[in-house]
Protein backbone atom coordinates (compact mmCIF):
# COMPACT_ATOMS: atom_id res chain seq x y z
CA UNK A 1 0.00 0.00 0.00
CA UNK A 2 1.28 3.53 -0.73
CA UNK A 3 2.27 5.89 2.07
CA UNK A 4 -0.75 8.09 2.89
CA UNK A 5 -1.34 9.98 6.11
CA UNK A 6 -4.99 10.42 7.05
CA UNK A 7 -5.85 12.87 9.82
CA UNK A 8 -7.90 11.42 12.67
CA UNK A 9 -9.82 13.37 15.30
CA UNK A 10 -11.36 11.21 18.03
CA UNK A 11 -12.38 14.18 20.18
CA UNK A 12 -15.75 14.85 18.58
CA UNK A 13 -17.81 14.02 21.66
CA UNK A 14 -17.42 12.34 25.04
CA UNK A 15 -19.76 9.40 24.45
CA UNK A 16 -18.58 6.00 25.61
CA UNK A 17 -16.98 3.83 22.95
CA UNK A 18 -17.31 0.32 24.29
CA UNK A 19 -14.42 -2.06 23.69
CA UNK A 20 -14.55 -5.80 23.19
CA UNK A 21 -16.43 -8.13 20.88
CA UNK A 22 -19.93 -9.51 21.36
CA UNK A 23 -20.40 -12.21 18.75
CA UNK A 24 -18.35 -13.96 16.05
CA UNK A 25 -18.89 -16.02 12.93
CA UNK A 26 -16.31 -18.46 11.59
CA UNK A 27 -15.62 -20.70 8.63
CA UNK A 28 -12.64 -22.52 7.17
CA UNK A 29 -10.45 -20.43 4.88
CA UNK A 30 -10.86 -23.05 2.14
CA UNK A 31 -14.63 -22.57 2.22
CA UNK A 32 -14.34 -19.03 0.81
CA UNK A 33 -13.89 -18.92 -2.94
CA UNK A 34 -14.29 -15.18 -3.55
CA UNK A 35 -14.28 -12.03 -1.44
CA UNK A 36 -16.41 -9.18 -2.79
CA UNK A 37 -15.11 -5.68 -2.08
CA UNK A 38 -16.93 -2.39 -2.48
CA UNK A 39 -15.02 0.81 -1.71
CA UNK A 40 -12.42 -1.11 0.28
CA UNK A 41 -14.92 -2.92 2.49
CA UNK A 42 -15.98 -6.53 2.29
CA UNK A 43 -19.61 -6.62 1.17
CA UNK A 44 -19.96 -10.32 0.49
CA UNK A 45 -18.43 -13.73 0.08
CA UNK A 46 -18.94 -16.54 -2.38
CA UNK A 47 -18.79 -19.77 -0.42
CA UNK A 48 -17.97 -23.27 -1.69
CA UNK A 49 -21.35 -24.43 -0.45
CA UNK A 50 -24.19 -23.40 1.83
CA UNK A 51 -24.28 -23.24 5.61
CA UNK A 52 -20.53 -23.00 6.17
CA UNK A 53 -20.47 -19.97 8.49
CA UNK A 54 -20.89 -20.99 12.13
CA UNK A 55 -22.05 -18.63 14.85
CA UNK A 56 -20.17 -18.26 18.13
CA UNK A 57 -22.08 -16.66 20.99
CA UNK A 58 -19.77 -16.45 23.98
CA UNK A 59 -20.05 -15.13 27.52
CA UNK A 60 -20.96 -11.46 27.63
CA UNK A 61 -18.87 -10.83 30.71
CA UNK A 62 -16.44 -8.32 29.28
CA UNK A 63 -13.69 -10.84 28.55
CA UNK A 64 -14.01 -11.35 24.77
CA UNK A 65 -11.64 -9.24 22.71
CA UNK A 66 -9.76 -8.98 19.44
CA UNK A 67 -6.39 -7.25 19.41
CA UNK A 68 -3.93 -6.42 16.65
CA UNK A 69 -0.76 -4.86 18.06
CA UNK A 70 1.57 -3.66 15.34
CA UNK A 71 5.23 -4.66 15.43
CA UNK A 72 8.31 -3.81 13.42
CA UNK A 73 11.47 -5.83 12.97
CA UNK A 74 14.07 -3.67 11.20
CA UNK A 75 11.83 -2.33 8.44
CA UNK A 76 9.43 -5.26 8.40
CA UNK A 77 5.90 -4.58 9.71
CA UNK A 78 3.57 -7.28 10.97
CA UNK A 79 0.65 -7.61 13.34
CA UNK A 80 -0.07 -10.49 15.69
CA UNK A 81 -3.84 -10.90 15.61
CA UNK A 82 -5.44 -12.56 18.62
CA UNK A 83 -9.05 -13.05 19.58
CA UNK A 84 -10.15 -14.42 22.94
CA UNK A 85 -13.58 -16.06 23.32
CA UNK A 86 -14.88 -17.68 26.52
CA UNK A 87 -17.78 -20.13 26.80
CA UNK A 88 -18.94 -21.06 30.29
CA UNK A 89 -19.48 -24.75 31.07
CA UNK A 90 -17.79 -28.04 30.29
CA UNK A 91 -19.78 -30.62 28.34
CA UNK A 92 -19.28 -33.33 25.75
CA UNK A 93 -20.40 -30.83 23.10
CA UNK A 94 -17.59 -28.52 24.21
CA UNK A 95 -15.04 -31.35 24.14
CA UNK A 96 -16.12 -32.24 20.60
CA UNK A 97 -16.11 -28.59 19.51
CA UNK A 98 -12.62 -28.07 20.97
CA UNK A 99 -11.18 -31.25 19.48
CA UNK A 100 -12.58 -30.41 16.05
CA UNK A 101 -11.52 -26.76 16.16
CA UNK A 102 -7.89 -27.53 17.06
CA UNK A 103 -7.49 -29.46 13.81
CA UNK A 104 -8.45 -26.55 11.54
CA UNK A 105 -5.26 -25.21 9.94
CA UNK A 106 -6.69 -22.00 8.59
CA UNK A 107 -9.84 -20.22 9.70
CA UNK A 108 -11.60 -16.92 9.07
CA UNK A 109 -13.58 -15.10 11.74
CA UNK A 110 -15.93 -12.14 11.51
CA UNK A 111 -15.96 -10.41 14.89
CA UNK A 112 -18.80 -8.07 15.82
CA UNK A 113 -17.36 -5.31 17.98
CA UNK A 114 -19.29 -3.83 20.88
CA UNK A 115 -19.31 -0.51 19.03
CA UNK A 116 -20.97 -2.12 15.98
CA UNK A 117 -17.96 -2.32 13.65
CA UNK A 118 -17.34 -5.73 12.09
CA UNK A 119 -13.83 -6.94 11.31
CA UNK A 120 -12.50 -10.02 9.55
CA UNK A 121 -9.68 -12.01 11.13
CA UNK A 122 -7.79 -14.47 8.95
CA UNK A 123 -7.54 -12.53 5.69
CA UNK A 124 -4.99 -10.03 4.42
CA UNK A 125 -6.23 -6.77 2.96
CA UNK A 126 -6.97 -7.08 -0.74
CA UNK A 127 -7.44 -4.37 -3.32
CA UNK A 128 -10.25 -5.83 -5.40
CA UNK A 129 -12.86 -8.55 -5.55
CA UNK A 130 -11.18 -11.92 -5.96
CA UNK A 131 -9.84 -15.01 -4.27
CA UNK A 132 -9.10 -14.56 -0.55
CA UNK A 133 -5.56 -14.18 0.79
CA UNK A 134 -4.73 -15.92 4.07
CA UNK A 135 -2.75 -14.16 6.81
CA UNK A 136 0.69 -14.06 5.23
CA UNK A 137 3.09 -14.70 8.10
CA UNK A 138 1.20 -17.37 10.00
CA UNK A 139 -2.16 -18.95 9.22
CA UNK A 140 -5.01 -18.17 11.58
CA UNK A 141 -6.07 -21.05 13.78
CA UNK A 142 -7.99 -21.80 16.94
CA UNK A 143 -6.19 -22.84 20.11
CA UNK A 144 -8.90 -24.21 22.40
CA UNK A 145 -8.53 -24.72 26.16
CA UNK A 146 -10.86 -26.59 28.48
CA UNK A 147 -10.55 -25.66 32.16
CA UNK A 148 -12.50 -26.87 35.16
CA UNK A 149 -10.85 -24.27 37.40
CA UNK A 150 -11.90 -24.54 41.08
CA UNK A 151 -15.24 -24.50 42.90
CA UNK A 152 -14.79 -20.80 43.61
CA UNK A 153 -14.60 -20.17 39.90
CA UNK A 154 -16.32 -21.49 36.74
CA UNK A 155 -15.52 -24.29 34.35
CA UNK A 156 -15.13 -23.01 30.83
CA UNK A 157 -13.90 -23.48 27.29
CA UNK A 158 -11.69 -20.78 25.87
CA UNK A 159 -10.77 -20.15 22.26
CA UNK A 160 -7.65 -18.21 21.47
CA UNK A 161 -7.71 -17.44 17.74
CA UNK A 162 -4.30 -16.38 16.48
CA UNK A 163 -2.56 -15.50 13.23
CA UNK A 164 0.13 -13.14 12.02
CA UNK A 165 -0.58 -10.75 9.16
CA UNK A 166 1.04 -8.00 7.15
CA UNK A 167 -2.06 -5.80 7.36
CA UNK A 168 -4.81 -4.98 9.84
CA UNK A 169 -8.15 -6.72 9.47
CA UNK A 170 -10.56 -5.50 6.81
CA UNK A 171 -13.98 -4.33 7.91
CA UNK A 172 -17.23 -5.70 6.51
CA UNK A 173 -20.71 -4.30 6.02
CA UNK A 174 -22.27 -7.77 6.24
CA UNK A 175 -25.05 -8.05 8.81
CA UNK A 176 -25.78 -11.14 10.92
CA UNK A 177 -28.62 -12.13 8.58
CA UNK A 178 -26.43 -11.68 5.49
CA UNK A 179 -23.71 -13.90 6.94
CA UNK A 180 -26.13 -16.63 7.96
CA UNK A 181 -27.91 -16.37 4.59
CA UNK A 182 -24.84 -17.92 2.97
Amino acid at each position, binding site marked *: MPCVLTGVNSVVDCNNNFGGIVKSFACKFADI*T*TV*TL*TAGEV*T*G*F*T*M*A*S*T*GLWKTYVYDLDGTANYNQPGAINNNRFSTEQTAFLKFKGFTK*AYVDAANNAKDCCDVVFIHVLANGTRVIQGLEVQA*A*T*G*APARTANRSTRIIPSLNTDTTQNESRMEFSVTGNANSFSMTTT*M*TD*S*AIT*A*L
Partner: protein
Amino acid sequence: MENEFIYKVKDSFKKEYPNAVTLIDGVGVVLSENDFTEETTGTLSDPPKTRVFRAATQEDLKHLYEVDKHPEIEKISAQTAKKAK
Protein backbone atom coordinates in the same frame (compact mmCIF):
# COMPACT_ATOMS: atom_id res chain seq x y z
CA MET B 1 -29.19 -12.19 -31.81
CA GLU B 2 -25.58 -11.38 -32.83
CA ASN B 3 -25.25 -8.60 -30.26
CA GLU B 4 -26.99 -10.40 -27.42
CA PHE B 5 -24.96 -11.53 -24.45
CA ILE B 6 -25.59 -13.85 -21.58
CA TYR B 7 -23.85 -14.13 -18.23
CA LYS B 8 -22.74 -17.49 -16.93
CA VAL B 9 -20.71 -19.10 -14.18
CA LYS B 10 -17.37 -20.30 -15.51
CA ASP B 11 -17.48 -24.05 -16.19
CA SER B 12 -14.31 -24.80 -14.20
CA PHE B 13 -15.78 -23.08 -11.13
CA LYS B 14 -19.15 -24.76 -11.51
CA LYS B 15 -17.45 -28.14 -11.75
CA GLU B 16 -15.41 -27.54 -8.58
CA TYR B 17 -18.19 -25.90 -6.57
CA PRO B 18 -21.57 -27.09 -7.89
CA ASN B 19 -23.41 -25.57 -4.88
CA ALA B 20 -21.43 -22.34 -4.45
CA VAL B 21 -23.49 -19.66 -2.77
CA THR B 22 -23.15 -15.88 -2.84
CA LEU B 23 -25.06 -12.85 -1.63
CA ILE B 24 -27.46 -10.86 -3.80
CA ASP B 25 -29.20 -8.05 -1.92
CA GLY B 26 -28.63 -9.87 1.37
CA VAL B 27 -30.09 -13.12 0.09
CA GLY B 28 -28.09 -16.32 -0.41
CA VAL B 29 -28.22 -17.42 -4.06
CA VAL B 30 -26.60 -20.55 -5.52
CA LEU B 31 -24.44 -20.24 -8.63
CA SER B 32 -26.11 -23.07 -10.50
CA GLU B 33 -29.06 -23.65 -12.81
CA ASN B 34 -31.27 -25.23 -10.16
CA ASP B 35 -32.49 -24.27 -6.71
CA PHE B 36 -30.64 -25.98 -3.89
CA THR B 37 -32.27 -27.39 -0.75
CA GLU B 38 -30.13 -27.58 2.35
CA GLU B 39 -31.21 -30.02 5.06
CA THR B 40 -29.67 -29.49 8.49
CA THR B 41 -30.08 -32.21 11.10
CA GLY B 42 -31.25 -31.06 14.51
CA THR B 43 -29.12 -30.87 17.64
CA LEU B 44 -30.01 -30.65 21.33
CA SER B 45 -30.26 -26.89 21.02
CA ASP B 46 -31.45 -26.45 17.41
CA PRO B 47 -34.35 -28.09 15.57
CA PRO B 48 -33.75 -29.59 12.11
CA LYS B 49 -33.96 -27.00 9.34
CA THR B 50 -34.65 -26.93 5.64
CA ARG B 51 -33.52 -23.95 3.60
CA VAL B 52 -34.09 -23.43 -0.10
CA PHE B 53 -31.55 -21.34 -1.99
CA ARG B 54 -32.79 -20.07 -5.32
CA ALA B 55 -30.66 -20.41 -8.43
CA ALA B 56 -28.98 -17.26 -9.73
CA THR B 57 -30.93 -15.51 -12.48
CA GLN B 58 -29.44 -13.70 -15.46
CA GLU B 59 -30.08 -10.46 -13.56
CA ASP B 60 -28.09 -11.79 -10.57
CA LEU B 61 -25.20 -12.92 -12.76
CA LYS B 62 -25.21 -9.57 -14.55
CA HIS B 63 -24.93 -7.79 -11.20
CA LEU B 64 -22.10 -10.07 -10.09
CA TYR B 65 -20.21 -9.49 -13.35
CA GLU B 66 -20.87 -5.80 -13.95
CA VAL B 67 -21.02 -4.40 -10.40
CA ASP B 68 -19.09 -6.81 -8.17
CA LYS B 69 -16.54 -7.73 -10.88
CA HIS B 70 -16.87 -11.35 -9.76
CA PRO B 71 -13.96 -13.31 -11.29
CA GLU B 72 -15.95 -16.53 -11.71
CA ILE B 73 -18.70 -15.04 -13.90
CA GLU B 74 -18.25 -14.49 -17.62
CA LYS B 75 -20.14 -12.63 -20.31
CA ILE B 76 -20.43 -14.49 -23.58
CA SER B 77 -22.43 -13.99 -26.74
CA ALA B 78 -25.72 -15.83 -26.88
CA GLN B 79 -24.55 -17.39 -30.14
CA THR B 80 -21.44 -18.86 -28.49
CA ALA B 81 -23.55 -20.19 -25.64
CA LYS B 82 -25.93 -21.80 -28.11
CA LYS B 83 -23.06 -23.44 -29.99
CA ALA B 84 -21.61 -24.79 -26.74
CA LYS B 85 -24.86 -26.62 -25.90
